[in-house]
């Protein structure tokens, strides 16, 4: 008789996950996403290694994709930070899309009304207006959640749709309509973002925000209160933390950051300098959902979100090569988003359990 020892798999509940385990789980889930995506590339008749090489060589080439990579990557970073802050308090802000639209409206409203201002004044004003508009939109959902206990996932999503049509209202045949069909008027030259090191200055702004946010959440008293609320609303209540206040605060902060990205997006890329057609601005706004996935993969660590956002940006930009150079079908980049989110979700399992191999006796 030949005995085959079948190891018995046993799952064991994890009480508290260590930081190192969490990081390795996230890295592993990304790796698996790459492997799965390779399968799709092969199905489309491309050599995965060749494809990845093409993607990254294009995305990081100074002459080709680098500036777009950085621009899109930091745009996603705005959205990620906007997701992270409320999530630390236990709130799902999936309203980055809407807050980005509102930020867009704020920034453009300033630029159209005061086009003759000196850039040194106009640009800060645009950023401020974008942040305020976004903050208002975030705070609206925060208020509904904090004061009236309305589910924030549903409200923020509804607000996204409302904001989409709001932009539509202003651009397509509206007061901001340009000469070209369905787009807005171009921004005045004074509103264009100054470029530093191949990327608009707002990229450095968002890096700064990420660092400040990290310190703020870790070491400030408010940051502590946010973390307590996120871990246990009941405990927060018992030690005198006002959940409604914190809720409005985090949603407003998240909204403000997402709102800033309105300026970054349209004024930071010479390809735009205006609000494009609805399909195009919707496609850009859909990128904000990456913020959700990156935020979760980074375990809500805003510093870790910086490289990952740029990395994702490089895939977005680089995969356009797949369409043009390798003649692969459109939509592979968004497919990759989908795969990452799914593998990440599946790997969440390891946040709660570890698999132990038990030999059968």
């Amino acid at each position, binding site marked *: 008789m030949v005995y085959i020892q079948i190891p018995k798999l046993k799952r064991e509940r994890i009480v508290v996950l260590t930081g190192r385990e969490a990081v390795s789980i996230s890295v592993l889930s990304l790796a698996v996403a790459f492997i799965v995506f390779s399968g799709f590339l092969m199905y489309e008749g491309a050599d995965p290694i060749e494809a990845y090489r093409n993607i990254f060589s294009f995305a990081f080439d100074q002459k080709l994709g680098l500036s777009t990579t950085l621009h899109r990557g930091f745009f996603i970073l705005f959205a990620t930070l906007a997701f992270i802050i409320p999530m630390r308090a236990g709130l799902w802000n999936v309203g980055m899309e809407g807050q980005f639209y509102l930020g867009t409206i704020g920034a453009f409203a300033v630029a159209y009304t005061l086009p003759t201002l000196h850039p040194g004044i106009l640009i800060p004003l645009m950023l401020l207006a974008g942040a305020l508009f976004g903050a208002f939109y975030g705070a609206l959902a925060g208020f509904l959640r904090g004061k009236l206990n309305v589910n924030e996932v*549903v409200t923020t999503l509804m607000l996204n749709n409302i904001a989409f049509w709001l932009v539509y209202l202003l651009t*397509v045949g509206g007061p901001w309509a340009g000469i070209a069909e369905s787009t807005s008027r171009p921004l005045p030259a004074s509103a264009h973002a100054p470029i530093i090191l191949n990327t608009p200055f707002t990229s450095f702004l968002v890096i700064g925000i990420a660092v400040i946010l990290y310190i703020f959440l870790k070491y400030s008293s408010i940051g502590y209160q946010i973390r307590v609320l996120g871990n246990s609303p009941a405990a927060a209540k018992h030690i005198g933390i006002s959940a409604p206040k914190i809720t409005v605060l985090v949603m407003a902060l998240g909204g403000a950051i997402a709102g800033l990205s309105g300026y970054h997006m349209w004024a930071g890329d010479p390809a735009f300098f205006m609000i494009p057609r609805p399909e195009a601005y919707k496609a850009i706004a859909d990128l904000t959902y990456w913020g959700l996935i990156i935020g979760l993969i980074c375990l809500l660590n805003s510093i870790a979100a910086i490289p990952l956002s740029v990395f994702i940006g490089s895939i977005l930009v680089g995969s356009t090569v797949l369409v043009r150079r390798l003649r692969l079908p459109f939509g592979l980049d968004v497919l990759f988003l989908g795969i990452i*989110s799914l593998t990440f*979700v599946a790997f969440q399992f390891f946040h709660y359990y570890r698999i132990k191999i038990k030999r059968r006796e």
Partner: protein
Amino acid sequence: MWPFIIRSLEVATILLLAAIGELLTQRSGVLNVGIEGLMLLGAASGFLTAMIWGLIPGYLAGLLIGALFGLLHAILSITLRVNQVVSGMGVWLFAMGFVTYWADRYSGPLPPWVTSIRVYGLSPIFFLAIITVVVIWFILSKTHLGLKIRSTGENPFAAEVSGVKVMRIRYICTITGGALAGLAGAFLSLTYLGIWSHLPTKGLGWIAFALVMFSLWRPFILLGGALLFGFVWQFAISPETIYAGIPAPLPILRMLPFIITIILLIIISSERFRRKWWLARPEALGVPYIKE
């Protein structure tokens, strides 16, 4: 007028199928925030299948892929005990990416030979949706299985000691819910739109999700809500069929369903309704069940 009513009943059908499935899922204690994604998958697979094999296989494909991803959500959230919101969001985001890649290259109308069967202009799926609501109502309130489902959603530990197979019940409900959402998606792309365009659900799945919250988890209130929103949605799209001289610019009307959803959410969250709402809410909703 009649065409408008038919169109709004079609929207109601989409909402109803997706929402009644979600209602069943939630009654068993599982939250599936991914129905927008399931609808997208159903819409895409339905559309692509119908292009080759025709309408009925299209519907079936939608049903099937919905059930498949319902199963995936079940495995993730019930067996692997991933946070149910994270899991649902993951399915949704995956669907957005996958469907764009999969179906956008076939953008355009269905081939002319794929036409929907209609009775007085209404699709039989509309009647199927109504029957589904009645059946699910009957199961939930009049049968032992329904009692088991409700118990599982309220307190799985108590249900388990009474001999209820909690895991099995949750799997069944989540898969069924997924299948219905998939069918809703197929109906959307095949009968309501008849054409494929980029991410066609446009927030309908999220409205269906909100409808379940409004309905206090009761099928007949859900039916009313779906009819109302079907009307509002269609009105927002083509107000001129109701009254030719509507002055409002179109985009403002398109905001209407979403604004009404928020207003309704605020109303049910008010002091008067909140208590009722909490009593009606399945107590174990969104909480993974861990034996012992």
